């Protein structure tokens, strides 16, 4: 498999990617609603990442639903990066967060007519389905402003965050491909939902 070894990557790294890529499947998901203003940010970032690296290192998916329906779409993959909008209390528009499944509340976060994503993945796993381990699911979330008005454009602060969000996804992809899980050792748990990393583009609020 021919890989696009971009950025700071070494030949050793690329060889490892090649070996892993033959057996492990990686999925990048843009999650949200593209006609509901900033709820489309996840899809926009996923599209930008796809344009940047192509489909050699990961497959791409646009999804609008969480919970069971999202978990069903993750079946068969070993590593997943979800890109989504977020609204935190007092959050700075365009701020970028790296989250894990463990950071997500048990309820209602992501498909509340059925189950949390974490429980939905466990349900599929219980039935013999192949799903990514919890620590192989990374979530890149971008602080949104407007989630109530129908529209196909992002607010300026959120639009401006796309390049940094793309970098965050690429950094996460690198970590997840190298380590088999996403969370780099230099990341520290900062708050209930937030991880602050020693490098990269992620910003705390």
């Amino acid at each position, binding site marked *: 498999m021919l890989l696009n070894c971009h950025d700071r990557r070494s030949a050793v790294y690329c060889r490892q990617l090649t070996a892993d890529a033959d057996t492990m499947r990686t999925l990048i998901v843009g999650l949200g609603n593209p006609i509901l203003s900033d709820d489309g940010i996840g899809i926009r970032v996923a599209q930008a990442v796809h344009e940047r690296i192509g489909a050699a290192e990961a497959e791409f998916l646009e999804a609008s639903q969480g919970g069971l329906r999202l978990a069903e779409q993750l079946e068969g993959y070993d590593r997943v990066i979800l890109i989504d909008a977020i609204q935190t209390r007092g959050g700075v528009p365009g701020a970028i967060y790296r989250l894990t499944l463990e950071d997500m509340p048990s*309820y209602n976060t992501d498909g509340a007519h059925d*189950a949390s994503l974490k429980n939905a993945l466990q349900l599929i796993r219980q039935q013999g389905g192949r799903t990514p381990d919890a620590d192989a699911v990374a979530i890149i979330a971008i602080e949104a402003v407007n*989630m109530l008005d129908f529209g196909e454009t992002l607010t300026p602060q959120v639009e401006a965050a796309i390049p940094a969000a793309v970098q965050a996804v690429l950094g996460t992809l690198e970590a997840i491909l190298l380590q088999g899980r996403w969370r780099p050792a230099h990341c520290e748990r900062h708050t209930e*939902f937030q991880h602050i990393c020693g490098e990269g583009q992620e910003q705390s609020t």
Partner: protein
Amino acid sequence: MQRISIDPITRLEGHGKIEIFLDDLGNVANTYFQIPELRGFEQFCVGRPVEEMAVLTNRICGVCPEAHHMAAAKAADAVFHVDPPRPAKLLREMLYSAFYCADHTTHFYALGGPDFVMGPDAPVAQRNILGVIHKVGLEIGGKVITMRKYGHHTIEIIGGRKVHPCTSIPGGLSKGITKEQRDEIEPMARWAVDFALFSLQLFKDIVLKNQGYVDMILGDIYTHRTYYMGMVDTNNKVNFYDGKVRVVDPDGNEFVKYSPNEYKDVIAEHVEPWTYLKFPYLKKIGWKGFVDGKDSGVYMATPLSRLNASDGMATPRAQEAYEEFYRTLGGKPVHQRLAIHWARLVELLYAAERWVELVTDPEITSDNFRTIPTETPTEGVGIVEAPRGTLTHHYVTDERGLIRKVNLIVGTTNNYAPITMSIKKAAASLIKAGAAPSEPLLNMIEMAFRGYDPCFGCATHSLPGQMPLEVTIRNALGEVVDVLKQCC
């Protein structure tokens, strides 16, 4: 005055918020169920070709895009004054039956069922689908996954896509199905019938054989006497895809039966200052407030409503289940809101049986799946029964078919008034002066509306900053005196 705030509601789409205000004695003074309203949809649609609406509107709701797809397709048929050929109607209804099976299954096993299977006072961490599986058996999980998989696969075959179907166009469909696809679908439909029968038996074993649950269902806390709405066929049997909308009064007598283009003669909307969402009511009765009874224009549109508004089910086993339902609960109409869960399973069986009927119809693989529209587009209304209630799409176009006006009444909106009433009654019954609210008690208040399966999310899946259930109790000065949290 104290204020108890449940924000947001667990296990429900969107960001609903319940506020319970207590008086100085600690009794419930009032309750408010507030939800954010999505804005600007009509403006977003104006100028777009009406045939796009079936694809565009299924983006409104992440939970039931199939329902919007169908209502929009039927409204576009009406705009173009075209009646799709029978095979097209069969295919659309088959897609819709498969969708119903997946959706009703998910609600029962993941959302409504845990309250009964695990019990309303079970630890919150166990009141979910994994808890149900742990208690009832691992094979349940496999059945739920299979039912969803079969439903979604059938949707994909007919609708072109697994999540957002795109094949319904004015006058019918853009493609039919092959005999090979028909042969692939049929065993899935037959499996769904067995699964629905299994689910009904499970409900009987777990809920109806538990006297405590039966008492809870039949108790006054969860009972309201209102009007009921649902779509029926020419024999007044429940139909999800086509027919007239029938409304019965609290005694079960027919109040009105209307065609889609008559909906504005029947439905009006009331505005309250504390919420952006409007409250639909029966225009001829009038808005009398959040009250029960024949003189109040409040109506409900749910699985239970559809059963109440009909004279039965159009398939044999579902008819048997329908008869048992009313025989057990004391005749028609049933006013106990917790019976919505049982009614949903009766509908699951009907949807599965109907799925089999449709896939075995000789015309299902016909090439005659579209009538090309020839008339000038003007205005049209399309109505289907969404799982959560009657769904109405109304479009007005110019002579080129470009949208001028849009009006939607979505399933849950119909139920906004009865949900509000159910919350208030449950809160007033369960919260007693001087007693601190507990988590199980708050869950029992949530159960008052969970049966309605209200859906306000409309495909917004933003990760929240703070999602666990949080209850804040304030004294008369607005000071926080206690905070209860359900930890994630």
